[in-house]
């Protein structure tokens, strides 16, 4: 076990510390996202106020939501496959927590420092598909089934551009390790000018855009929210869920949005690093998480702004975008990146 914050902590202490940290890293952003975007930004876009009564500016609204869902009846539909139905939300949430594992929050503040970090992240992000399919199938509802199948088709289709977009970064950084990707950006330089480092958004802008679009689709956010399309499929695979299990899905949705944004921030925006500071300093173990959170908000703002303003694609149009546009472009991006890597 490597030290966190350069402090020696006994093994059990680290376990507790990591558990709390993991929960905070996944659920904290989720809560913030729900409050800031779902309640406040959306209301602002729609020229409303949003929740105002619960706490100052409605800041305790979230606690009320959670408290409410804990009190709700936990309904199993009569024809549901009870075990699968009960497990599905946990599978979805598990994928989120596995994602958090590899996100670096500072030079030493990480949960696991895998050499194949990004590979691992992209792999476990697909686990949620299984959970969604489980939910869709086990609900014994046609809406849920359609939603689950749509989700599966969509997530599989967009996994490919997601991976290919990351490939550019990996080629440029020369590593699959997320920590090293951050360092590569911190230590990189553009045409000999190293003052800003080299956030890969500059050199991999195409990759960033593709990653953003594919991420939007992976998160099933509008304009790619067919699996949960409220006006067609009610709420898709979540239709039959109530109480805590729905809360888990709900939290999972936003936590995944947060974690994916963090990964995007790590890959393209320089992660926890701020230009002008030494990336090895212990300072980043303290401010790193905050910096990463800030960069995460840049990405999530983009995601949610699209969410609130765009209509929804149709399922076949969505597939067309993935296979006919995103994948060829990302392949071209890889070729160009590879050539340039050799040239420079």
């Amino acid at each position, binding site marked *: 076990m490597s030290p966190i914050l350069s402090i020696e902590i006994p093994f059990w202490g680290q376990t507790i510390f990591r558990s709390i940290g993991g929960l905070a890293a996944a659920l904290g952003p989720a809560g913030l996202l729900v409050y800031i975007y779902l309640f406040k930004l959306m209301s602002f876009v729609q020229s409303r106020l949003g929740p105002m009564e619960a706490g100052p500016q409605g800041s305790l609204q979230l606690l009320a939501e959670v408290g409410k869902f804990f009190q709700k009846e936990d309904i199993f539909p009569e024809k549901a496959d009870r075990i699968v139905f009960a497990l599905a939300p946990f599978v979805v949430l598990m994928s989120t927590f596995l994602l958090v594992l590899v996100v670096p929050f500072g030079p030493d503040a990480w949960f696991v420092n895998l050499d194949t970090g990004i590979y691992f992240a992209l792999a476990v992000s697909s686990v949620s598909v299984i959970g969604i399919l489980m939910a869709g199938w086990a609900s014994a509802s046609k809406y849920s089934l359609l939603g689950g199948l749509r989700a599966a088709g969509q997530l599989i289709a967009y996994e490919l551009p997601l991976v290919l977009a990351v490939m550019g970064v990996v080629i440029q950084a020369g590593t699959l390790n997320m920590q090293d990707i951050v360092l590569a950006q911190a230590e990189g330089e553009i045409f000999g000018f190293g003052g800003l480092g080299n956030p890969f958004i500059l050199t991999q802008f195409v990759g960033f855009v593709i990653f953003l679009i594919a991420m939007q689709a992976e998160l099933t956010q509008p304009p790619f929210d067919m699996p949960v399309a409220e006006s067609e499929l*009610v709420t898709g695979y979540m239709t039959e869920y109530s109480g805590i299990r729905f809360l888990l899905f709900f939290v999972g949705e936003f936590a995944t949005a947060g974690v994916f944004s963090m990964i995007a921030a790590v890959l393209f925006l320089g992660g926890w690093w701020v230009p002008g500071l030494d990336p090895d300093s212990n300072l980043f173990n303290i401010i790193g998480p905050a910096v990463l959170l800030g960069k995460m908000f840049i990405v999530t703002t983009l995601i949610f702004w699209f969410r609130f303003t765009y*209509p929804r694609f149709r399922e*076949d149009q969505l597939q067309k975008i993935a296979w006919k546009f995103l994948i060829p472009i990302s392949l071209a991006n890889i070729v160009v990146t590879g050539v340039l890597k050799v040239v420079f």
Partner: protein
Amino acid sequence: MTAISETEQLRYISQQAADARVNVEIETEGMTLNLGPQHPATHGTLRIVAKLDGEQVVAAEPIMGYMHRGYEKLAEVRTYPQVTTLINRIDWVGSFANETSFILAAEKLMEVEAPPRAQYIRTILHEMSRIANVILGIGDMGVQVGAVTPIFFAFRDREYVLNQIEAVTGGRFHPNFDRIGGLKDDLPAGWVQNTKNSMDKIRGFCDQIEELMYGNEIFQARTRGIGIIPPEIGLSYGVSGVNIRASGVDWDARRDNMPHGLSYDKVDWKVWTHPDGDSYARMWCRLQEVREGTYIIDKLLDDLPSGPVMAKVPRIIKVPAGEAYVETENPLGVMGYYVVSKGDLNPFRVKIRSASFNNVAIAPWLLKGVYVPDIITILGSLYFVLGDIDR
């Protein structure tokens, strides 16, 4: 629900499936999807039973009656003023427009005519209810295709119109203001200027929505080429209003068949048509009609005649025996009342020809072979109100 046995429904659907415009060579097990009676997409309580092959619709059949309140029967047991109250609630989004044609039919039988000022105000309120109605339809279309924001803008700017309607009639949207022979009251002071300001706001809304929604590539991708109504098919189904004008039929009951008692012929205005006949064309024409409506109101307000708003009619209204049919161009399409009177206090028979009933009748034809999301787009672009279908 006990209304239809499933086997009966399936047999009917499979009959229809034979001539559905879909590829049925690959034999897969079909699925019957039931949208409604309460479903976010169906504007209330329409129920669509769709037989699917994958996500493609093999056959779809709307089932209504969840909002059937028996208007035609109830109208027979109510006096004429009471009927006005009732029929307000047929197309509840644009209520005043419902009253107009019934009142005009009764006036025709009684051979009275409203004074010019009343006719002008009637026309203004008729157009206002069109604006209040269609704005909501446009916002709702946004929700149907997945954009949540336009509906909030629609509700926000609809309030300007409702405020003006409320100022003159006292009701936000069930005015019950029309009387046989005129109107209940004259306009309140300052109303004309306030209305003009409101119309400016509405035009602002039109510009905003045109940019935000109609200009959006995804919106266009979702609506263009979806649900094309050929003109001759549409006419034989009795599709009217914007839905048929978007198919290129230049026919507007306000211009071509205007009943006595409205003032559309006093101002210049344009009937908007679109050659495409698809969902986008329908929504586009709607938006243009809202904008045109604001200009009509402005012009009518400019030369509003003075004088009384009520003609001389007896206090207890007995309509002479006879039959009359009057139709007006309502927000949703042509709405007509066929009134049969026997000289009593109450009508003997009122046949309500409501626009949405005919407009939605074309849905089974339109929905064959589309995808599930297109069901919602097509229904949204046909824009119906359940009360107008079921009555």
